[in-house]
C-alpha cells in the first residue's frame, strides 16, 4: 500500500484557521499528524518604531477574546522600561490590574465552557455537527445557557468598569493605572440590583463544577482517556508559597510524573527557552533549552497550572483542586479532557478573588502611578486564560521599540496540540480509508480542549467548516468528506 495523506482543511478562512494533515504510512497506519497554523500577524515586526507607551494599547489587538491579557503582559514589560518592577507598583494599581485580569479570565473561561465546550459535553461525540452548538444548548438547557450568558457578562462588565470598554479598552499606563474604582462601580457588582452579584457568580461557578464532576462520573472512560498523553506542564506560581498565580510569579515546569524541570524568575525566560520553527506552520515551537526540542516542550493553560501549583489560595477553589488532584493520587494530571474541569476550578478561583478585591478599600485608592530609573528592556509574563503569555520589548534612546518578542499561550501549546491530534488520529484512523463525521468531531474536540486562539478557528459556536481529503503519495484523491 502506498503512503497516504489525509488533510482536514477549512473551507473558509475567517481570520485564519488551522489545518490538519494526517499522514499514513505504507501499511495504512497513522505515521504523523500536523496542525498547520496558516495565519500570520506580524505584530513583533510592525510594533517596531512605535513609542513604548503605545504598546499596551496596540498589542491587545492581537485578540478579541483575551485583549486584557495582552494589555497587562505588555504593561508589565513597559513598567520596567520606566524603571518599575511588579513589586514596586502601588498597592492600588496592582489590585486594580488584578481585578481586571480576574474579570478577563472569568469571562473567557465562561465563554469557553458555556459557548464552545458544553455542546460537545452535552450532546456527545456522535451528535451531528449541526446540533453541537450554543443554539442547541440554549434550546434544550435554558437555565445553563442563561447562567453562561450572565457569567460571561459579569466578567465583561468588570472589564468595562476598569478599562472603559469590554473589548480593547485601557487601564494600565507605564508604572501603574490611569483610573481608580468608585464606590458606585463597586456596588454595581456587589448589590445584585442590576446584574447578579459576585456571590451569585461564586454559587454558579460551584454549580457548574458539580455538573462537570457528575459528567465525569458518568463518562469517566471517555473523559479520562480521550486524547490523553504524558507531557511537561508550565505555569506561574506564587514566589513565596508556590500557589496558583495568574498575574505575577515564578515560572515553574514539571514533567508528567511531577519532577521539577524548571523554577525560575519569569524575566529569566530568555535564558531558559528557545523557539523552534517548522516549515509547515507559522506558529513556533517553544521548548526549554536544557531539555531540547524533543523533550523540552510544555503544555500550558488550566490543566498545566493546576499541575504546577502547590495549592490555590482561595478556599472553595482549593477544595475543588483537592478533589481534582485525588483523581490522579496527587500526581500530575495528563488527561487532556480534564482541562475543561481545571478551567472551571479556575473560574471559581477568579470569582473568589474578584469578591476579595471588590471588598478591599484599596481599589478605591488614588495613589496610581510610580516612576523609576528608565531601562532599555522590559519583560512581562502573565497567565492568560489559555496559558503562559510572554511579552518582551527593547527600546532606543528615544523610547521607540527596536525589538519585540511574543510567546503567546497557544504557541506554548503548539506541540501539545499536534500531539493531541496525533493521539486521536492513531486511535481512530488506522486501517480505515473512510473518513467519518465522528472522526472529524473528535479531532476538533482534541484541539478545542486547549481553547486555542488560531485566531478564531476554534472560537467556534457551531460546526467547524472542514474538508477532509484522503490522498495517496502521488496526490491522487481516494476519499473526500466536506461539511
Amino acid at each position, binding site marked *: 500500500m502506498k503512503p497516504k495523506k489525509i488533510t482536514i482543511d477549512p473551507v473558509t478562512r475567517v481570520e485564519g484557521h488551522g489545518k490538519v494533515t494526517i499522514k499514513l504510512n505504507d501499511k495504512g497506519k497513522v505515521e504523523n499528524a500536523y496542525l498547520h497554523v496558516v495565519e500570520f500577524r506580524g505584530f513583533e515586526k510592525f510594533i517596531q518604531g512605535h513609542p513604548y507607551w503605545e504598546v499596551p494599547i496596540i498589542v491587545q489587538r492581537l485578540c478579541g477574546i483575551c485583549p486584557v491579557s495582552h494589555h497587562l503582559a505588555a504593561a508589565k514589560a513597559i513598567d520596567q522600561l520606566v524603571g518599575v518592577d511588579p513589586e514596586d507598583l502601588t498597592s492600588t494599581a496592582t489590585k486594580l490590574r488584578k481585578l481586571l485580569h480576574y474579570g478577563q479570565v472569568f469571562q473567557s473561561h465562561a465563554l469557553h465552557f458555556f459557548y464552545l465546550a458544553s455542546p460537545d459535553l452535552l450532546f456527545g461525540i456522535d451528535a451531528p455537527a449541526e446540533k453541537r452548538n450554543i*443554539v442547541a444548548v440554549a434550546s434544550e438547557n435554558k437555565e445553563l445557557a442563561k447562567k453562561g450568558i450572565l457569567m460571561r457578562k459579569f466578567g465583561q462588565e468588570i472589564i468595562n468598569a476598569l478599562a472603559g470598554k469590554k473589548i480593547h479598552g485601557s487601564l494600565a499606563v507605564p508604572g501603574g493605572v490611569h483610573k481608580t474604582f468608585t464606590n458606585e462601580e463597586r456596588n454595581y457588582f456587589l448589590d445584585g440590583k442590576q446584574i447578579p452579584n459576585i456571590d451569585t457568580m461564586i454559587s454558579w461557578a460551584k454549580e457548574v463544577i458539580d455538573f462537570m464532576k457528575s459528567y465525569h462520573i458518568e463518562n469517566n472512560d471517555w473523559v479520562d482517556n480521550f486524547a490523553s498523553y504524558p507531557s511537561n506542564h508550565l505555569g506561574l506560581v506564587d514566589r513565596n508559597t508556590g500557589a496558583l498565580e495568574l498575574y505575577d510569579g515564578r515560572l515553574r515546569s514539571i514533567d508528567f510524573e511531577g519532577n521539577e524541570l524548571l523554577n525560575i524568575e519569569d524575566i529569566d525566560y530568555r535564558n531558559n527557552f528557545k523557539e523552534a520553527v517548522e516549515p509547515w506552520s507559522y506558529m513556533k515551537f517553544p521548548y526549554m533549552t536544557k531539555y531540547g526540542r524533543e523533550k523540552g516542550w510544555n503544555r500550558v493553560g488550566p490543566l498545566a497550572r493546576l499541575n504546577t501549583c502547590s495549592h490555590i489560595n482561595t478556599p472553595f477553589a482549593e477544595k475543588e483542586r483537592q478533589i481534582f488532584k485525588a483523581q490522579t493520587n496527587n500526581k500530575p494530571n495528563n488527561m487532556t479532557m480534564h482541562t475543561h474541569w481545571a478551567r472551571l476550578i479556575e473560574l471559581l478561583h477568579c470569582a473568589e478573588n474578584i469578591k476579595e478585591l471588590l471588598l478591599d478599600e484599596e481599589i478605591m485608592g488614588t495613589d496610581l502611578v510610580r516612576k523609576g530609573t528608565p531601562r532599555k528592556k522590559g519583560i512581562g509574563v502573565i497567565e492568560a486564560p489559555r496559558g503562559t503569555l510572554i511579552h518582551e520589548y527593547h527600546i532606543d534612546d528615544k523610547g521607540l521599540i527596536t525589538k519585540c518578542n511574543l510567546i503567546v499561550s497557544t504557541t506554548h501549546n503548539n506541540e501539545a496540540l499536534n500531539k493531541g491530534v496525533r493521539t486521536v488520529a492513531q486511535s481512530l484512523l488506522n486501517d480505515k480509508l473512510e473518513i467519518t463525521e465522528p472522526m472529524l468531531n473528535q479531532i476538533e474536540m482534541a484541539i478545542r480542549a486547549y481553547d486555542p486562539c488560531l485566531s*478564531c478557528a476554534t472560537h467556534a459556536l457551531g460546526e467547524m467548516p472542514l474538508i477532509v481529503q484522503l490522498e495517496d503519495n502521488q496526490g491522487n484523491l481516494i476519499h473526500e468528506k466536506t461539511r
Partner: protein
Amino acid sequence: MKKLDNTLIIGIGNNTRQDDGLGWSFIDLLENNGFNTEHLLCKYQLMVEDAELISNYKNVIFVDACKSELNNGFSIEPILASEQVTFSTHEVPPNQILHLCESVYNKKPKATLIKIQGYNWDFEICLSKQATKNLKKTFSLFKNKWDVI
C-alpha cells in the same frame, strides 16, 4: 432630547476600516441629532450575550455596513429569528441573536436591520464619499419614518 424608550439601536462595525464604520457613524448621527445615548450602542460584532441585552427592549434596530449593491445605497427591513448557526464567535448575525433571545428569555423584540452600502475597507478612519452620501440618505429616511418603525 429625543427619547428612545424601549428601543435599542446597535451600530455594528469598525470605524478604523473605512466604510465598515457606517454602523458607528449612524449612531454618531443619532447622538448629534439629540437622541439620548442611553439606548445607543456601537459594537465590533454581536456576541451571544447580546441575546440577554435585547431581551430588555420591545424594539431593536441593527445598523451595519453592507458590501453588496443596494437600491438607493441602503435598505431598512424587518428581520425575524433564525436557527442558523455561524461558525465563529466573530460572525454572529442579528437573526441568530433574536433566536437565542426567544429560546432563552422567551422574548421577541421587534427587530429591524438597516444596511448601508459601503465601498472601501482599508485601514483608515474615514468614510468614502459615496458611503457618506448613503449614510445621509439612510438617516434622513430613518428620521422621517422614526414613528412607524
